[in-house]
């Protein structure tokens, strides 16, 4: 097929007798698609690229599921009082949110910048706002898949949350605010550092947050100063907030919302100032 196409093409160049079709095919007819269509297509592409990426899938799906199953079924880790899965699920959900909206987004965007993808998209009718909207939708899409998978696994392991309409709403609000905070920090990193530095840094943060962020066990067991330091981390705020809502059935502390809001604000401001597209 390929050979045939080339032969035909070369012939057309030599004898412009077939030019009529080409004129109608290539005749200028410029115009941008509606904004919603551009954003929907771009979000679909981002979502597929994220889900297809092996290492990202490891961070966003495999590791959270393994942590949840492994530490629920074994007692190698002191996770606090009550059924193990009840204690673990909120933290693992928080880790999953961070893996997508921080680690995955930072690494993906860093390499897109490095390979000129952001620059190339900048030459299309898709605006920067449209691109950010698409990335946000893709991140939320992956997080929705993560939530379904992790909650299903947790329920299968005997997780018994006490959901009320209010607690579900509070959990969703926490996740959305945390997504804004993580995403703006991810874009700050990806838009200012070299792609390799972003890759190393984002993975390092993932591991540090896994240990320090109250993901697997509450930070209340930490020595005083360390506990205080950990409490201002976004992943700690998210995991403690989710733990309050899902496990204890109590409303999340205003402090958790405040910490996430401050990170989102600072990260967003810095990213919008410092982000470099190429």
């Amino acid at each position, binding site marked *: *097929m*390929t050979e045939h*196409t*080339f032969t035909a*093409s*070369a012939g*057309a*160049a030599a004898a*412009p007798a077939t*030019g009529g079709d*080409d*004129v*109608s*095919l*290539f*005749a*200028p*007819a*410029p*115009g*941008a*698609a509606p904004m919603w*269509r*551009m954003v929907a*297509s*771009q979000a679909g*592409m981002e979502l*597929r*690229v994220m889900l*297809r*990426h092996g290492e990202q899938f490891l961070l966003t799906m495999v590791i959270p599921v393994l942590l949840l199953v492994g530490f629920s079924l074994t007692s190698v880790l002191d996770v606090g009082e009550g059924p193990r899965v009840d204690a673990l699920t909120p933290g693992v959900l928080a880790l999953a949110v961070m893996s997508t909206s921080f680690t995955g987004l930072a690494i993906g965007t860093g*390499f*897109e910048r490095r*390979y*000129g*993808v952001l*620059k*190339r998209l*900048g*030459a*299309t*009718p*898709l*605006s920067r706002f449209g691109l950010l909207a698409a990335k946000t939708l893709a991140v939320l899409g992956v997080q929705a898949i993560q939530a379904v998978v992790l909650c299903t696994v947790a329920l299968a392991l005997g997780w018994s949350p006490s959901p009320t309409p209010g607690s579900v709403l509070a959990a969703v609000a926490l996740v959305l605010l945390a997504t804004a905070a993580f995403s703006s920090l991810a874009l700050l990193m990806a838009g200012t550092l070299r792609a390799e530095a972003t890759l190393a840094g984002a993975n390092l943060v993932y591991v540090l947050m896994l240990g320090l962020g109250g993901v697997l066990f509450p930070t209340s067991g930490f020595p005083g100063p360390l506990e205080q330091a950990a409490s201002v981390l976004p992943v700690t705020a998210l995991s403690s907030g989710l733990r309050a809502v899902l496990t204890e059935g109590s409303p999340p502390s205003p402090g958790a919302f405040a910490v996430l809001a401050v990170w989102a604000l600072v990260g967003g401001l810095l990213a919008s100032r410092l982000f470099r597209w*190429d």
Partner: protein
Amino acid sequence: MDTAAVEVVDLVKRYGTTTAVTGLTFSARRGAVTALLGPNGAGKTSTIEVCEGFRRADGGRVRVLGLDPVADAAALKPRVGVMPQSGGVPTGARAAEWLRLMASFHARPIDPRLLLERLGLTSVAATPFRRLSGGQQQRLSLACAVVGRPELVFLDEPTAGLDPQARMATWDLVTALRGAGVAVILTTHHMDEAERLADHVVVIDHGAVAAEGTPAELTGGRREVCFSTDADVDAARLEAALPRGGRVGSRDTADGRREYTVTTEDPDALDPEFLAAITAWCASSGVLAEDLRVRRRTLEDVFLQLTGRELRDQ
């Protein structure tokens, strides 16, 4: 609609202390192919990236379809297609998938399947970008530049690294775009590409225009006589023997001989008698002229003459 597709006046572009473009002026017509020809580092990509709105000019005036490439970027983007020198596609995106995405940004795109077939990419439609060969990546990038039916396309080194067949497919597409009324601006350091495709050639060297015109104007439709020899040739005596005047230039060749080029001021002066006069002088001087030939001047010769350097050796 009678404005130029691109108008660049006294463009200056600096990077730190380096000045990449030093007062460059040219214009490109609609429905025509304009080639920016020059060695690597001449300032071609800087010029094109200013026109694309990717970089801001440090001086001069640039108008694209009558608009400012930075201030009017939103209005220009749907109307202008861009093919960067490399990259621009996520490594994990599949060829057809990415082209469909680019098509979806436009109101009346070309059917991506037709473009893939035309550029010989149908068999790799489902292949991720990172697994495509360099030539396939180039052609996908070209397809992305034209899929939105633009009025104007910028192609930065569209055939760099392509095999002859893929190069032919790219040339064919450029010719078809031109035939359909699309303005094409391409950069190249292949003079045969400029000669074959371009209506207008802008020769760029050291960030400025060294010469411009149609390929025929630049080469002047001129012929010259070349030969090489290891004998000593007294250029002044050979010039004196020419019937209606002429100039003898020479340069050392790679194999240690000297190549002589005889040119005339008046193109009509290079006639059969002129050639006979050269061979007669060689015979009387005991010079065996090897590889003796009459040839048309190429853009390569023009470039060499303008800059004292060869295009390919940069």
